[in-house]
């Protein structure tokens, strides 16, 4: 990826030949004793980082993409000369879709292996399980998933969207473009969908209602993860006839949900849906033809048309196979190592406290477009996008927000 720029100035340095000048920062300029004062696993020519995802268990399906993206980013960084002249080495641990295991492995990575940073976690539950360990032992986690917000730890960089970024602009878009006035909120039963729906409900009832008094939420439902029978729900939806189904159904339930919708004759034509949970990864299992025409609010789609994304998709497929697809989270995971590299080089040190201070203002021309780390909460400013699901399991991008949207994990008035 030749598009990395830690500051605007370095953009110039990075173009073309200059990449090598930057990439060849030799380790000698940064003696180990100076760049590593807290005893992390940094030697004169290597630096060790941890990767903590589920390789086994139910979450393995979702987390594989993130593992692959992080590996790709690290490989590219190493090819460019590494971080502060040091090649990155990875210790990979398996969280096994089990939260105590995540905590245990995080402890191992940080205490035993003394890694310089950890890229990992996917579900909110796993993040919540490891967070106290990161805070206590002062290490840095790069967390890729779009999530519920309500958190801004100085030991976590959130490379996915937090809930308000994903939801508010999407709902406004549906209000304007689809003319949606009545909403049915549907989600899997855990913290992320519930918080998201809370934000959605508040936005509909407080903001949209002021524009048009007929705006209302006509139903709100949650189903346990792994639930596969949605017929009753579909009948309820039919009875209430919402203008828009706003959904956050995840995991194995997704396939059942879309298939049963289709076979019950609920299609995008008569019942539009805006989802915040279905990415290209899920569509692989669902089958594009079963979800055709529904909308998704994300910050990245594989079909985005820009040179950075083209290069990214090409290299990803070269490394992981022509059949692989790239979803929102996979792209966000790809950003993790790059942001870490930028922060380390800006700080001139691997020390966690210095990296933390270096994070604000780091900019990237990422596959999703330009992003910037927020000044206070270590989330990313990014553009929201709406995609329409196509038959082949890809998205057609139908709308992109004009402005970067500010991450606001503790939204006033929405809590």
């Amino acid at each position, binding site marked *: 990826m030749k598009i990395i720029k830690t500051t605007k100035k370095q953009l110039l340095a990075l173009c073309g030949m200059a990449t090598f000048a930057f990439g060849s920062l030799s380790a000698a300029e940064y003696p180990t004793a100076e760049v590593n004062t807290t005893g992390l696993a940094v030697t004169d020519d290597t630096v060790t980082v941890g990767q903590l995802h589920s*390789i*086994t268990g139910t979450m393995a399906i979702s987390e594989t993409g993130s593992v692959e993206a992080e590996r790709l980013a690290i490989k590219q960084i190493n090819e460019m000369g590494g971080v502060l002249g040091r090649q990155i080495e990875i210790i990979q*641990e*398996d969280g*096994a879709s*089990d*939260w*105590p*295991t995540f*905590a*245990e492995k995080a*402890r*191992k990575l940080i*205490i*035993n292996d003394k890694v310089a940073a950890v890229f990992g976690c996917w579900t*909110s*539950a796993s993040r*919540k*399980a490891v*967070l*106290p360990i990161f805070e*206590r032992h002062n290490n840095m986690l790069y967390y890729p998933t779009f999530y*519920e917000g*309500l958190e801004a730890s100085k030991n976590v960089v959130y490379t996915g969207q937090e809930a308000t970024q994903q939801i508010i602009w999407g709902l406004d878009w549906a209000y304007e473009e689809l003319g949606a006035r009545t909403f049915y909120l549907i989600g899997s*039963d*855990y*913290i992320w969908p*519930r*918080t998201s729906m*809370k934000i959605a409900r508040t936005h509909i009832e407080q903001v949209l209602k002021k524009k048009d008094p007929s705006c209302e939420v006509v139903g709100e439902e*949650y189903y*346990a*993860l792994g639930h596969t029978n949605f017929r009753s729900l579909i009948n309820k939806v039919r009875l209430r006839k919402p203008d828009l189904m706003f959904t956050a159904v995840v995991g194995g339930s997704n396939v059942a949900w879309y298939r049963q919708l289709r076979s019950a004759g609920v299609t995008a034509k008569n019942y539009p849906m805006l989802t915040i949970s279905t990415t290209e990864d899920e569509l692989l299992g669902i089958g594009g033809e079963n979800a055709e025409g529904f909308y998704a609010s994300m910050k990245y789609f594989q079909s985005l048309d820009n040179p950075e994304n083209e290069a990214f998709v090409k290299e990803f497929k070269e490394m992981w196979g022509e059949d692989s697809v790239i979803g929102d989270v996979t792209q966000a995971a790809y950003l993790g190592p790059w942001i870490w590299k930028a922060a380390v080089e800006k700080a001139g040190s691997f020390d966690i406290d210095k990296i933390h201070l270096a994070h604000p203002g780091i900019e990237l021309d990422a596959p999703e477009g330009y992003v910037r780390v927020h000044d206070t909460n270590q989330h990313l400013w990014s553009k929201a996008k709406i995609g329409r699901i196509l038959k082949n399991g890809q998205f057609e991008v139908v709308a992109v927000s004009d402005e970067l949207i500010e991450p606001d994990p*503790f939204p006033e008035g929405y*809590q």
Partner: protein
Amino acid sequence: MNSLKDYTDPSFSKLLYQRLFANKEALVGFLILTALLLLVLPLFLSPFRLGLAGRYLCYAFVAVGLVMCWGKAGILSLGQGMFFGAGGYCMAMFLKLEASDPESTAIQTTPGIPDFMDWNQVTELPWFWMPFKSFPLTVLLILVVPLVLAFVMSFFYFKGRVTGVVFAILTQSMVACLWYFIVGNQGYFGGINGITDLKTLNGWDIREDSSQRILYFICSLLLLACILLSRYILSSRLGRVLVAQRDMENRVRFSGYNITSFKVFVFCFAAVISSIGGALFTLQVGFMSPNLIGVVPSIDMVIFTAVGGRESLLGAVYGALAVSYAKTIFSEAYPNLWMFFYGGVFIAIVLFLPKGLAGLYQDNIKVWVKNWMRKPETDPESLKIKESEVNNVE
């Protein structure tokens, strides 16, 4: 044995000794385990590994409970996770309340309540959280909640003579039901994330290495105490009836025993032990979540017992330690092979080692030990005693 005199009577302590340790071998076995838990592991393991061992020992509580109700009384429960969770959640609720004092939760809409309640628009502490403001009450509830649950769950079924696989399936459904209950009541129990970020117990920081070490010792001592208590029960008439009804239920019933109450008792006993394990687990891990107590973990708990030997209390501890340790090591090195290996262990134990590690010891090692000991012994009289002792082992 009502007066104090009886307790000070030397013959009482002898009697107690006899009831706890049927013979020397049982005593030696117990002492070896004590030494292992209290000396060997703490001396040789790094703080990180010792912390892991402490967690495995929590599962050993459940395994000991299962020896009592499955091995000894023939009641297989696939739902022990429910009781493990009962204790774990009680403890977690207490710790969470302590961690959610108004200062540290000032950022919330309603300060002073647990963070997940605030995220779910709960604005005041629900009534069933109130008891968890007090530590003594919490300890009491850790014992009482599983007792009540186990009683309600088992009484009607045992009375209706539900046995064997049907009861196993019912307990499995119950643990599934509890899982859905917790997941569905996110505002009250934290949902699928569980109750996380627990910090202190009465002001004592449970996350320090030193406190983890202390917790490890508390855990070991309580486990040893539970084993002794179980031994005591087994050596009583109650214990003999339990074993008898396992092997010949109708005959015991016709002899005039009320089998239902015996079964309910042992089921409740196992439940309470598991709950203690759960509470200690929460203290050592620092959180509790429904995925620790669902259908699959509950079956895992049965395999600890099966590997250790379903009829051996000491075996259960070794089983829990061995399987959990293997899981950690294997899944670090070969996550894919692990599942094959784990599934294979289930099958192999059932096919070739129905008595588990304890059976392996009984059938092979013990013979060898006996032969080895026999050589120096020439006095036929002492040999005879040895033989009779050997036959006495549980």
